[in-house]
């Protein structure tokens, strides 16, 4: 599959998705570490893609997303932002609300 198709599929199939360097347990970058930490604190399941293991995605996602850096948080197919936005939303309590609502919505859809 073309890289761009894989990206689109990941974004479409995972309502909460973090593109990051490393994994939430073993992040390879300070910004990815902070972002995944904030996301984990929301207490809901989320998907992640380690872009260091996927150099093709690392190369192509910035253009597709119109966002030059990583991490990138995607919720329901929409780019929310990078580390600074994630942290600021977390401090304001907005991230928790967004993530909880998305998780609830997804669960209801799965059960129905």
């Amino acid at each position: 599959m073309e890289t761009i198709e894989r990206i689109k599929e990941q974004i479409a199939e995972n309502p909460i998705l973090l593109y990051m360097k490393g994994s939430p347990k073993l992040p390879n970058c300070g910004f990815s570490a902070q972002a995944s930490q904030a996301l984990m604190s929301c207490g809901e399941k989320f998907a992640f893609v380690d872009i260091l293991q996927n150099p093709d995605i690392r190369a192509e996602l910035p253009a597709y997303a119109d966002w030059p850096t990583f991490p990138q948080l995607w919720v329901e197919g929409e780019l929310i932002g990078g580390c600074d936005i994630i942290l600021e939303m977390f401090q304001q309590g907005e991230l928790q609300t967004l993530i909880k609502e998305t998780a609830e919505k997804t669960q209801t859809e799965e059960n129905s």
Partner: protein
Amino acid sequence: MNIATTIEQKLLSAFSPIHLDVVNESNQHNVPVGSESHFKVVIVSKNFEGERLIKRHRAINQVLANELSEHIHALALHTYTEKEWHDYYADSVPLSPKCLGGSKT
């Protein structure tokens, strides 16, 4: 011209900021001494009023597109409107500790 100055000048002309800090944080990272790879920008501008964070960041990324693709590895962005900046910092600028007399001993 170094990268920090370029960033500063581009942001000054694009956003007419009320406050602008461009900090080279490269020394905190695993890069050679004197690198210009990791930056932090604190910017307060009227242009951000009514704009969500992602839109503000996108606007800055666009102005710095060339630097981002050629030179900058990491760019931390802290964007505020005048009111947010005031609300955010009015009560929270850390105070320096009180004197405990050590300078006279």
